[in-house]
């Protein structure tokens, strides 16, 4: 979830109105964002929608708010001017980082605040929308230092040296990846590449090494600069184009004129791409989705406040929006502009029959019986530790569902049994008064080769000075008897239990439970110093 910070006062001048904190909070709802922090004039906004990156700057937010407040409606105008130059794309980039878009913006001298905002937007777009620069990376430059046209190509890692930002000497591209902080941070993006992308100008000055770093000589904006060159490179054509449009609109809001750049590629394009997409709007669908009867005028009003344009039939989409995939996306905005607070809820009257999963009845009956037996119910995490499941239980490790990218060994597999979880719990509760009688019902996941399935298990542990085999067998028989199941008890060899004091209950040829006196070596592993008996029952097998 991206978070951006900006000056409230500056924002008010963009919107053209004073805004109270409550005004702000209300308006941010429309942007699917919320006020995170306010410290003096600084406010931080958090976005829940990752799909509308044009809002991730105060300028974009101001475009929407001006519409909602009725100060300026319809698709905003961009101050366009003559061409800013051209970028020539070499075929070599197609395998590495195929796409680029750019433009030049000319306007008032840059302030320190505006440079900060520009860098913030650049970072949010590259990080949150561009998947940590892999999909999209952005560079901004003082345009006066650049001699067009610019070439976008790849070179061998050691074939070229330049002075990157925040470095003391010239480095080769390979050295940048090894030594420069940004190089180390983003080298994973280029890990498989034999050649690296580079931007150079007509005088062969390096502008940047995308997606890693700009040149110190040509790639650092300073306070007072009036002309800015913007470029976005990446693996998504629509992504780089969208970023160019978003930044162009942001600068346009600040009084800059936009000078498009011609990108000479397999197909030549001029960026920012400002062509308007058009959708036919079916009014019946509005009623179907929102439940609102809206006149054409009302529809038009809501759409233009949301910065669309509407002629009674067709909707034109502002170029900075790429999230419209279906008419429903437009219809949602009509609903939002109408105001969720203004929508009267309706009850659903259709009668349907409620029911729990079929296994719930038996599960709950058994849980009640366990409480009747004097046991305390436990509810644990399903994620567990293989060491607990096998080693501590004195068992040989068998196949199970393990997590590849776990953060802590304690939560690195899905449990296969519940018994070990209850035993480990007892070892943590020596301060509580004995006897310890606990039970848990829940899911476990078993795996055999490439097959895996979930099962409902019930485990009980009783730990006190006189716990013995008879007690646990009585419990198992009590539960199975109450379920009205006929079963046979057979001796069982299980290394978690004392040999000759472990048994299994069979229903037909299905082993539905095993139980007995826990082996002292296992008790020692769990630091339990009381005789302990336990059982685990496979409820799914009983139900099957």
């Amino acid at each position, binding site marked *: 979830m991206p978070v951006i910070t900006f000056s409230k006062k500056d924002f008010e001048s963009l919107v053209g109105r004073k805004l109270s904190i409550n005004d702000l909070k209300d308006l941010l*709802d429309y942007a699917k964002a919320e006020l995170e922090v306010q410290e003096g004039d600084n406010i931080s906004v958090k976005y829940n*929608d990752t799909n509308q990156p044009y809002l991730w700057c105060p300028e974009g937010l101001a475009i929407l708010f001006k519409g909602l407040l009725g100060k300026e409606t319809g698709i905003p105008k961009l101050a366009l001017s003559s061409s800013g130059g051209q970028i020539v794309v070499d075929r070599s980039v197609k395998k590495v980082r195929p796409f680029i878009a750019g433009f030049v913006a000319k306007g008032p001298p840059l302030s320190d605040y505006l440079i900060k905002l520009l860098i913030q937007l650049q970072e949010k777009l590259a990080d949150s929308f561009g*998947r940590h620069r892999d999909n999209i990376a952005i560079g901004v430059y003082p345009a006066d230092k650049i001699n067009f046209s610019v070439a976008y190509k790849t070179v061998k890692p050691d074939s070229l040296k330049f002075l990157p930002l925040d470095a003391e000497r010239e480095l080769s591209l390979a050295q940048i990846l090894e030594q420069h902080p940004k190089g180390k941070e983003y080298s994973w993006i280029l890990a498989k590449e034999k050649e690296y992308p580079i931007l150079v100008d007509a005088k062969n000055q390096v502008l940047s090494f995308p997606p890693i770093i700009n040149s110190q000589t040509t790639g650092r904006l300073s306070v007072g600069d009036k002309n800015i060159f913007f470029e976005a490179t990446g693996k998504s054509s629509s992504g780089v184009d969208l970023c160019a449009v978003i930044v162009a609109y942001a600068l346009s809001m600040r009084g800059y004129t936009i000078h498009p750049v011609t990108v000479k590629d397999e197909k030549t394009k001029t960026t920012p791409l400002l062509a308007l997409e058009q959708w036919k709007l079916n009014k019946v669908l509005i009623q*179907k989705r929102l439940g609102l009867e809206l006149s054409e005028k009302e529809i038009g009003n809501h759409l233009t406040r949301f910065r669309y344009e509407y002629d009674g039939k067709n909707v034109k989409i502002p170029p900075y929006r790429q999230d419209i995939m279906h008419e*429903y996306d437009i219809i949602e905005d009509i609903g939002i502009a109408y105001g969720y607070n203004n929508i009267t*809820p309706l009850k659903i009257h259709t009668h349907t029959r409620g029911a*729990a999963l079929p296994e719930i009845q038996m599960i709950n009956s058994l849980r009640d019986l366990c409480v009747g037996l004097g046991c305390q119910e436990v509810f644990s995490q399903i994620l567990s530790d293989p060491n607990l499941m096998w080693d501590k239980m004195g068992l040989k490790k068998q196949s199970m569902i393990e997590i590849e*990218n776990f953060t802590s060994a304690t939560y690195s597999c899905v449990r296969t049994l519940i018994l070990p979880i209850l035993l480990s719990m007892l070892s943590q*509760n020596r301060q509580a008064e004995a006897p310890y009688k606990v039970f848990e019902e829940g899911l476990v996941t078993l*795996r055999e080769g490439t097959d895996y399935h979930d099962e409902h298990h019930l485990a009980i542990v009783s730990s006190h000075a006189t716990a013995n085999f008879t007690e646990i067998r009585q419990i198992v028989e009590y539960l199975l008897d109450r379920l009205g199941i006929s079963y046979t008890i057979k001796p069982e060899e299980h290394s978690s239990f004392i040999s000759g004091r472990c048994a299994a209950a069979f229903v037909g040829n299905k082993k539905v439970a095993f139980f007995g006196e826990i082996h002292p070596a296992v008790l020692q592993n769990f630091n339990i110093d009381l005789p302990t008996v336990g059982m685990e029952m496979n409820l799914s097998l009983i139900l099957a």
Partner: protein
Amino acid sequence: MPKESVQELAASLHPLERKALPFVVQKTPFADIVRKSGLKDVEAMRALQWLQNKGLVQIYQDIEEFVVLGVLGQKYKKEKLPERKFLDVFEKDKKLLLKYLSSNAGLDANETNTVMGKLKQANVINISKEQIGIIVELTDFGKSFLKKKLPAESFLENSFPLLVTSLNREEKEILQSLQKRKDIVGVELAKQVSASILPLGRQVVESSAMKTEVIDALTPQVLRTGDWQKKNFRKYDVTVNVPKIFAGKHQHYRKFLDGIREKFMSLGFMEMTGPIVETDFWDMDALFMPQFHSARDIHDAYFVKEPKKGKLDEKFVKAVKKVHEQGWKYDFNAEQTKRLLLRTQGTACSARMLASPDIRIPGKYFGITRCFRKDVIDATHLADFHQTEGIIVEEGLTLRHLFGLLQMFAKEFAGAEEIKLVPGYFPFTEPSVELYAKHPQLGWVELGGAGIFRSEVVAPLLGRDVSVIAWGIGIDRIGMFRLGLSDVRDLFSRNLNTLRNAKVV
């Protein structure tokens, strides 16, 4: 204290107190009380403490001198004093040869010497030297001890340790003389517990209630014999604390979730479920979350080490691939969609339900499912948590119905009358909405998210586009509010005391 109160007090005495109290006089040693009352040490001590609490007696603990028996003293107490063995030989003859005497008394030379000295000094014997050897003869005074005890013998009959201050002058002299002999007696400092009766105690002892017998425990015997008709019951102090007990009990959060299930059933919802180990396909792709999109970053999934890929129905994969490629404009990776992970959202179950041949239209479904996300575990985050989610499948449902449903949920599940609905974003719903409820202390609290499933979700799974209202409630958070917990980990507490003491909602 008025007479009735004294009677009342007497009637409420515990049997142990009744037995001990009459023997408490002035600084009566504890040992005496034990001996006279016939109680065991622990019983007598408990009785005295209770009596002291009631203001009937005062307990003292003084450091005092005690006479203790040495090794020989214990032996002599059990057997006989050497003097007695010596005297026993005189039974027949009053005048004997020393040689004969010491061998018949079974004494060694040392003992013989001591005994002779002591008895001579006490004027029990006379010693004379004659030709045939040393002759020992009982004096007249000495003859009287053939029938009665020597002072030292009487002394040893006391029970030890013996309080020195309780001895009379004569006894003190005996003590001194015994102390001169090896290993018979010694004097040591030790703690002396004693008790004195207080005025109120005396009143109680003298009260008539102490004289009538009372029934302590109501036994089958008492009922059979009808004794209770003649006697009074001892009155208990019913205000006294009793030890706490712990019975079998349901886990607090599990019980809360049972209630949630009941509620959904009563509202006409059918329960649905799905596997813990899911494919990318059901967890995200079927929900129109593009394979490359940053929206996936918030679903930081746990991936399965082995097997890496699951099995899928190609029919659904094909249909989902098509809407992804049309909507998101990228090449859908039909291999990546098989990747196995631990379910990150309960909505995966809703997707499976839509694709199930058992689905009913109209139909209402809910699930209470475990979900897993890679997270650092703290007071507000778990890697293993619950989601409650569901769908309503019915032609003609609109955003207004969704709002009606959410209003009802807020009231039913969180007891909230006042709610706020805010535009939200989920890749699988359009429109999307977030539900907030007003909490009396905490203000606006997010309860969950909801929306109408996109056609890109419904059509590939169900085969046609029907209105599907979908919602998810952060049930763990509501559980915390209801159970008064501030740490989400306490929902799954492993502390037995916490579990035993947890409030039942």
